[in-house]
């Protein structure tokens, strides 16, 4: 069957210099296209520059967000960011959709920072996965984080009970 709609969403995190990241999110579908770019600096993980650019808006619903982008300077990636970003970017005079994409971009920085930690955990506490059901384990998972390391990671309140991997360990 031929598709009649596609959406594509690509987020890239670069470390421009030690402790300074650029996150670029590009979203594109038949009705909408946008590019969001933020630079975020450690140790506070606060936004130093922000660009919110909409390049396709078939229904003309999204207002110019240049002034909104300026208000993002100083917003931190971390607890409380959801409420703050929705208040600044979303609502009647802004764009809820851009707010959600921006939050996604910010979350991807957290993922990026987590990758080295997970890599270390896989090296220190890695194991060959157990098999759970049909076609579940493939060559893509030659080494995963094992139970003992999972329990250590689950001590982090941010991870505890956050998903199937970190639930029911008590």
């Amino acid at each position, binding site marked *: *069957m*031929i*598709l*009649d*709609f*596609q*959406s*594509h*969403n*690509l*987020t*890239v*995190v*670069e*470390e*421009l210099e030690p402790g300074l*990241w*650029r996150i670029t999110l590009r979203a594109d*579908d*038949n*009705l*909408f296209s946008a590019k969001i770019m933020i630079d975020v600096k450690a140790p506070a993980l606060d936004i130093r520059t922000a660009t919110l650019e909409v390049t396709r808006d*078939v*229904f*003309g*619903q*999204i207002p110019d967000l240049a002034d909104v982008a300026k208000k993002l300077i100083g917003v931190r990636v971390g607890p409380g960011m959801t409420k703050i970003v929705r208040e600044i970017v979303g609502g009647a005079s802004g*764009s*809820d*959709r851009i707010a*959600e994409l921006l939050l996604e971009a910010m979350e*991807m920085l957290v*993922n*990026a920072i*987590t*990758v080295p930690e*997970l890599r270390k955990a*896989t090296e220190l506490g890695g*194991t060959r*996965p*157990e098999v*759970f*059901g049909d*076609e*579940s*384990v*493939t060559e*893509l*998972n030659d080494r*995963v*984080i*094992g*139970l003992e390391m*999972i329990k250590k990671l689950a001590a982090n309140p941010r991870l505890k*009970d*956050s*998903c*199937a*991997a970190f*639930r029911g360990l008590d």
Partner: protein
Amino acid sequence: MKSSSMPQYSRLKTCGVQKQGPDYRVVSGVLEDELYAMQCEIRVYWPELTIESIKARMKRFTTDRCLLAEKFFSNCLGWSIDSELDGKIKKDLGRNGCRHMAALIVDCMHSLVRAELARRLKESMAGNPSLDKKEFLADFLRNNPNLGGYLKIR
């Protein structure tokens, strides 16, 4: 400003929507990043806007327990497309299962609804190239309150 850095992390999510006869819409989604690879296929019975089937596969993941998530994804069978759907997906499928798969499923469900709007716009413009799009959108939202509540086009 042009960057000279190599990417440290990237995530791609892509969704494709098909109309299968008058009553069914199908979406397939793929997520790939440094940590995860996932895919899902969801079929929705359109007259009632309910999820009729889902196949969600965790292809690449980080821990020995990630696959435990797969048993929760069928919890969404029978759920309707309405303003509550994103919350249910994130809470039930995400927190009990996998939040990365939940993010992909949310994208897929939004794509289904946006596809419906795009399809109807295209059909309407074929008969009326000078169609007022804002008026068309207002009509769509008025006539499809459940879809309108979920669309988040702005």
